[in-house]
């Protein structure tokens, strides 16, 4: 991505490689507000990267100390302890102890704790301080502590810990000058702490309670609203009702708000593409830029509004604390397929896009459960299938009312395809959990944070993050495939002119796979669409458009009419079923490879989904063909 992100000052670009910054690691437990604090300190001046060799993602941000010098802050994964038992914890320990390959040990550490939950979190602080690096302990959420009548004597605590301690609020910005001061001063190494020699968690905990008592720590009362909302959201009748309303609301937002946004964006891309075309000299180059790059990449870009909207909605649910409650509600149902409530969140996201969903499985502790969730996520009807479904259904199924004004035939068909994908996911989950991913226990342990107002800045930064990742993908893989496809339709040339489509490379490719897909009722053009839709499912529309656009016979007719020429109704059903089940998505394959650290799982998944899709499409073609002529 672009190297210079606008910073608040007209400062030098932040990513210029050779400069060596002092690095300070930021560590803290989940729900300590660490990320909010990190965002508050570094704003947009951060970048995402992966630690070498592992799948754990990290952010590096840049901040100026009190002397105006740049310091690199490394945001470590949220951890409760430094006993490396999960991948996240191993990464945190490796970075802090300088064992992370290619990364020097940090010059200092900032420990972020939740001041409303000091005893639990001091245990982590003790373990970090024991590493012997210059350490600053931040007690975050001071506003919540005070509001709920809690208290702590920071000076005494600092004396007990042997490190500087500050009471801060990442939300209001209170006390954050302590960070700047810490960064600029050559912070003294902490005195060796007199820690309990018993390395047990209980020993640490007893120590934490003692230290807390010495520092006059008074735990704040549980916010009244959290208890009130919980008795509603986890109510035995209202809980599930509200849950259903929230899930329906998420869908409604994506379709009712996201779809028009995407359409608007599509119009913008079309008109700007046409405008761009006017300024280019005609011929090959214009065709390359407009038909190759602009239209190909644009067909994927139109999903940006919908994906961002989904992340916004899920981000609001997550930051407000409702998502933890939703996991509790969903747990019972999920347990029937052998998974637990934590898989619910990724699977809900998978209705927008499997890529972020698979990334969101990181919160699932059980390796086997995580793998099962990754493997079933692409069966959920992602937004890339939507345009394909819409086009095929509109071409073949006349709209008629089924349930008065509420449900028409086309909407019912769409709903049916959603249910089809969901049922296959459930079936696959059962299959996996009773065979290769069998596990006795999939513990469901979920911390329930108090309800909070989501912070717009924090949500905004996450959206920027996701948007950049998506654009990067569109700008690389998808542009490459678009270019290859353009080349395949425009070569081999005849006397400097692009060939008729039936003589082009792409047609040859289509003809090669035609025997394999003939039994499903597909011809070579659909075959070409299946190949190109590997870039992203909806690319099949652009491909069929290109194929028919250059086809002299169907030149004047629109795509839907062309489709009716090409497919029988049974073939159309087969195409829909194939798209419901097949893993037609390079980005998903790439992200599964990254998340599982190898080609084994994506290969198994691709093979399984393709076989399922082929068999189901074959069955659909012949069964439907038997009834509909």
């Amino acid at each position, binding site marked *: 991505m672009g190297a210079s992100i606008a910073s608040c000052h007209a400062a030098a670009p932040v990513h210029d490689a050779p400069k060596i910054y002092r690095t300070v690691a930021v560590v803290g*437990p989940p729900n300590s507000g660490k990320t909010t604090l990190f965002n508050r300190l570094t704003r947009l001046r951060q970048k995402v990267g992966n630690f070498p060799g592992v799948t754990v993602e990290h952010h590096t941000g840049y901040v100026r100390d009190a002397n105006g010098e740049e310091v690199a802050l490394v945001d470590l994964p949220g951890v*409760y*302890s430094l*006993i490396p*038992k999960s991948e996240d914890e191993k990464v945190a320990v490796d970075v802090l102890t300088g064992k992370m390959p290619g990364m020097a040990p940090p010059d200092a550490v900032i420990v972020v704790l939740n001041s*409303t*939950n000091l*005893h*639990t979190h001091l*245990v982590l602080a003790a373990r970090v301080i024991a590493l012997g690096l210059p350490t600053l302990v931040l007690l975050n959420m001071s506003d919540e502590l005070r509001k709920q009548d809690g208290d702590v004597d920071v000076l005494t605590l600092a004396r007990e810990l042997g490190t500087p301690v500050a009471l801060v609020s990442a939300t209001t910005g209170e006390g954050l000058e302590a960070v700047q001061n810490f960064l600029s001063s050559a912070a003294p190494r902490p005195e060796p702490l007199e820690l309990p020699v018993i390395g047990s*968690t*209980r020993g640490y*905990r*007893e120590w934490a*309670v003692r230290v807390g008592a010495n520092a006059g720590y008074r*735990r*704040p009362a*549980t916010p009244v609203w959290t208890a009130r909302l*919980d*008795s509603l959201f*986890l*109510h*035995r*009748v209202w*809980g*599930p009702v509200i*849950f*259903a309303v929230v899930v329906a609301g998420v869908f409604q937002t994506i379709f009712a708000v996201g779809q028009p946004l995407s359409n608007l964006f599509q119009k913008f891309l079309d008109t700007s593409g046409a405008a761009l075309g006017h300024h280019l000299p005609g011929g090959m180059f214009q065709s390359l830029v407009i038909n190759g790059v602009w239209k190909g990449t644009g067909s994927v870009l139109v999903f940006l509004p919908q994906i961002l909207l989904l992340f916004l909605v899920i981000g609001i649910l997550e930051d407000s604390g409702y998502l*933890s409650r939703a*996991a*509790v*509600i*969903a*747990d*019972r*149902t999920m*347990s029937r397929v052998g998974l*637990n*409530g934590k898989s619910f969140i990724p699977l809900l996201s998978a209705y927008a896009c499997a890529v972020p969903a698979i990334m969101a499985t990181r919160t699932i*502790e059980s390796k086997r459960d995580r793998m099962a969730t990754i493997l079933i996520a692409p069966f959920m009807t992602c937004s890339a299938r939507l345009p394909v479904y819409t086009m095929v259904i509109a071409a073949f199924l006349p709209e008629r009312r089924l349930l008065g004004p509420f449900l028409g035939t086309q909407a019912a068909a769409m709903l049916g395809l959603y249910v089809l994908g*969901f049922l296959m996911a459930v079936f696959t989950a059962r299959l996996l959990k009773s065979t290769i991913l069998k596990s006795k*226990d999939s*513990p*469901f*342990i*979920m*911390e*329930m944070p108090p309800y909070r107002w989501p912070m717009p800045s924090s949500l905004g930064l996450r959206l920027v993050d996701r948007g950049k990742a998506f654009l990067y993908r569109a700008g690389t893989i998808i542009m490459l495939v678009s270019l290859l496809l353009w080349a395949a339709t425009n070569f081999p040339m005849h006397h400097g002119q692009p060939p008729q489509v039936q003589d082009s490379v792409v047609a040859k490719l289509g003809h090669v796979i035609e025997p394999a897909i003939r039994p499903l009722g597909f011809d070579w053009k659909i075959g070409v669409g299946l190949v190109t839709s590997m870039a992203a499912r909806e690319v099949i529309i652009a491909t069929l458009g290109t194929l028919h656009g250059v086809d002299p016979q169907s030149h004047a007719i629109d795509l839907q009419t062309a489709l009716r020429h090409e497919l029988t109704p049974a073939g159309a059903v087969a195409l829909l079923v194939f798209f419901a089940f097949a893993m037609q998505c390079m980005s998903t394959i790439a992200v599964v490879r990254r998340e599982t650290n190898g080609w084994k799982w994506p290969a198994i998944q691709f093979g399984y989904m393709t076989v399922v899709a082929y068999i189901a499409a074959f069955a659909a073609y012949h069964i439907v063909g038997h009834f509909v002529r």
Partner: protein
Amino acid sequence: MIFNFRFGRRRKAQPAGPSALADLKVGESAVLAELKLAPAIAEHLMNLGFVPGLVVKVLRCGPGGDPRVYRVDGTEVAMRRDLSEHIDVELLGAPAFGD
């Protein structure tokens, strides 16, 4: 639709003097005694505050009675019965430390 819930709670016959966390009723408190769970799970629970000696309270239950939400030293954690029935508690007695 897909999320059909079983209403009504299932509760096993209570043994004399409950000793498992799962046997406490909503609103009841006890002192944590022993976590008879796989080491990794026990460690995770202890990091969240489920340390023997601390007081645990059953705050509420989800629809259908499971999972339930517990509170230890200000932290609220939801877990299923399949874990809480392996956590021993002592009904009587003062907390060993904290609270």
